[in-house]
């Protein structure tokens, strides 16, 4: 194999995702005159923020070689609890904190069962998916909660320094997640446990505690997403977040994080979420039927993974 070829595939493996993203942006800029407008780009970011938040939490879980299917339902429950308490007269900031706390508690529930009872995360969080949805329906009686205080609206729609608040939240959480993964001993331990649990245990890493944390963190991420969604809709829907876990997993995987654990980073996930967001936005602008949109989205996810697989296979 020639040197040029090696370099080319190496570049593709490393920057393929970025290149694909830029190509997509460029194509949409040509196809639609509205795409590159500031208001549309901000709109894409705002729409992406919810999936991105879920995906950041999911990244941490997946690097630990787990999976969390319950994030969509968890989002719904945290969302209705915060909204419900606010409507019931709690001060908005307390209601918001309670929503976050609920997220951490439900995530911890998943984490405790996975980590301490050693049950497969797929099963545990699949159960969580239906349990949390059921809890949401019981709590709301199946009806949306409306009439939220001003603070929620601000959270979902206001802007600061030209960027919408949800985008600030997304960027803040992106940096926090990156910091944890990259610079703390906990983050290092997550990679180790996900890469080789046995080796991690033999190195004295508290494996169960580390796994527990990843699910609690995903719970926090979902609750943040829930608050943003409450604010954007100015209400809390009991059916909110249905199917969101799949978009989040898609963003993580497109972003280059291995489903086998031990490998990946949150910036890749961010890019993955942006690709999915731009794709949705672009297809809406081009009036692609929502039926076709699903097919295209699935196709793009597969294509991203195939390119990466081919490039990394060549590189070895």
């Amino acid at each position, binding site marked *: 194999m020639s040197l040029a070829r090696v370099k080319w595939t190496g570049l593709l493996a490393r920057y393929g995702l970025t290149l694909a993203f830029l190509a997509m942006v460029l194509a949409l800029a040509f196809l639609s005159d509205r795409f590159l407008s500031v208001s549309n780009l901000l709109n894409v970011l705002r729409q992406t923020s919810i999936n991105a938040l879920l995906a950041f939490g999911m990244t941490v879980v997946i690097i630990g070689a787990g999976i969390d299917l319950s994030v969509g339902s968890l989002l719904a429950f945290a969302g209705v609890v915060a909204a419900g308490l606010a409507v019931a007269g709690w001060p908005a900031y307390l209601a918001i904190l309670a929503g976050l706390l609920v997220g951490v508690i439900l995530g911890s529930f998943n984490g405790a069962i996975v980590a301490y009872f050693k049950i497969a995360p797929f099963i545990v969080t699949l159960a969580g998916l239906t349990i949390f949805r059921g809890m949401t329906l019981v709590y709301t009686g199946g009806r949306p909660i409306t009439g939220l205080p001003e603070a929620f609206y601000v959270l979902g729609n206001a802007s600061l320094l030209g960027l919408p608040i949800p985008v600030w939240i997304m960027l803040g959480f992106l940096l926090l997640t990156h910091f944890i993964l990259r*610079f*703390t*001993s*906990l983050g*290092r*331990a997550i*990679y*180790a446990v996900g*890469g*080789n649990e*046995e*080796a*991690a*245990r*033999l*190195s*004295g*890493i*508290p494996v169960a505690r580390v796994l527990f944390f990843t699910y609690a963190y995903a719970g926090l991420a979902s609750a943040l997403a829930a608050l943003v969604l409450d604010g954007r809709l100015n209400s809390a829907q009991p059916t909110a977040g249905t199917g969101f876990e799949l978009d989040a997993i898609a963003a993580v995987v497109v972003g280059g994080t*291995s489903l086998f654990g*031990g*490998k990946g980073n949150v910036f890749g996930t961010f890019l993955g979420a942006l690709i999915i967001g731009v794709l949705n936005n672009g297809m809406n602008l081009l009036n692609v039927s929502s039926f076709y949109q699903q097919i295209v989205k699935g196709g793009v996810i597969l294509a991203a993974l195939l390119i990466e697989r081919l490039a990394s296979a060549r590189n070895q």
Partner: protein
Amino acid sequence: MLLQMKGISKHFGGVQALQEVDFDLNANEVHALVGENGAGKSTLMKILSGAQPADQGSISLAGENISLRSVTDAQAHGIIMVFQELTLVPDLSVAENLFLGHLSRVVNYQALYKQAEAILADVGLQLEPSRAVRELSVGEQQLVAIARALAQHGKILILDEPTAALSAAETERLFELIEGLRGRGVGIVYISHRLEEIFRITDRVTVLRDGKLIATNEVASVSTAEVVRQMVGRQLQSYSRSQRRVGATLAKVDIQTSKIAQLNIEVKAGEILGLAGVVGSGRGEVITAMFGYQGHSDWGKHRVHEPRDAIADGIFLVPSDRKTQGLVLELNIRENTALAILPQISRGGIIQPKTERQQVTQWIKRLSIRPPEPEKLVWQLSGGNQQKVVVGKALATQPKILLLDEPTRGVDVGARHELYDMIEQLALQGLGVIVSSSDSEELVSLCDRVLVFRQQKVVTELTTPFSYEEVVAYVTGAR
């Protein structure tokens, strides 16, 4: 003559694994194949079972030359290997396993069970054919695996360490089965480290050493001492030990495993203690239990249930399998080396990059890990350098007692001597070092004292000076 292998040679890279080895087997014969690790036993048998091609040499079956291109090829000729790790499917029934790969598309279970019963009865096994293999004891599984080989019209059975995981009673049943096969035209190649067994049930014993045929003996006219001499063959020249003085007792450890109720071992400062024994002798379980891994131990202060407990007490284990237990292959040299000292290199939970780099570069230098690049992913390193990373990770914790389980398995000679030097240095610095190894030569090179394990018991304790021959004799049960 049933089988004749002539002038078999095989090399891997620059290593000559087999050099013009002859081996033959008669019908109704049990022929033992012995030799230390790396002598070439398994390579020879891989060639016979079609798993690997020979570079040179011929194989003939009943006087006719054959070529074995694959395992299926060999099986078609009736040559079947019964593996050390069993290859039955645990969730299928005994009958299904017996005929696995030869089942009709739609299975008539009544007929299948009937056939299975006949085969089982034939080898004197009383088992319900519909039982799941998972429910059987290891010994019963071994017998089923042999029955399966016979069901597939095996003419030549290769048994690789068949008694390694068996209890004494199960071993007896296996021997009965083997005796029962005499007079049926079947030939058996019996690979084992246990000379007692070999002298009980085999007719001839062939000794390999360093890929060469040393001798083929009639068991009736050779002594165990002679076989041990053939296995050992030479004086050790390769590694010269340093002068050490063994210090005071560091700790006394009580050990419990699933098979050993109670064992007490004394660890001394500056001493390298060896644990010798074949696979299944209990040696491996003892060293992991000392670390609170797959067993418990008590170092005098408190019970150790988890590796974490042991690490906190200044004990560290370099595990036997670096790929599945020692390393996180996706991470780099730096991250692996620092894995066990995360609390020490962090402040407020945040890793201090400078402290980390100092630690890591220090161990890369002291262990001469190549390439000396902290950011190199460990799966890209050679086996020897991977092992050095695991040792570096262990030493970074500054243990008082270092446990090494098969420290040089799959490590080339150069790196092996570097590791030996390191281990000796540690002992000179006053650490207590325990080495568990299936390589008797390694133990002779390194250890001041060796405990020999056989059937979950310490059968003898050797202190310097002792010879390679002595260790092998005790390990194989010749003494």
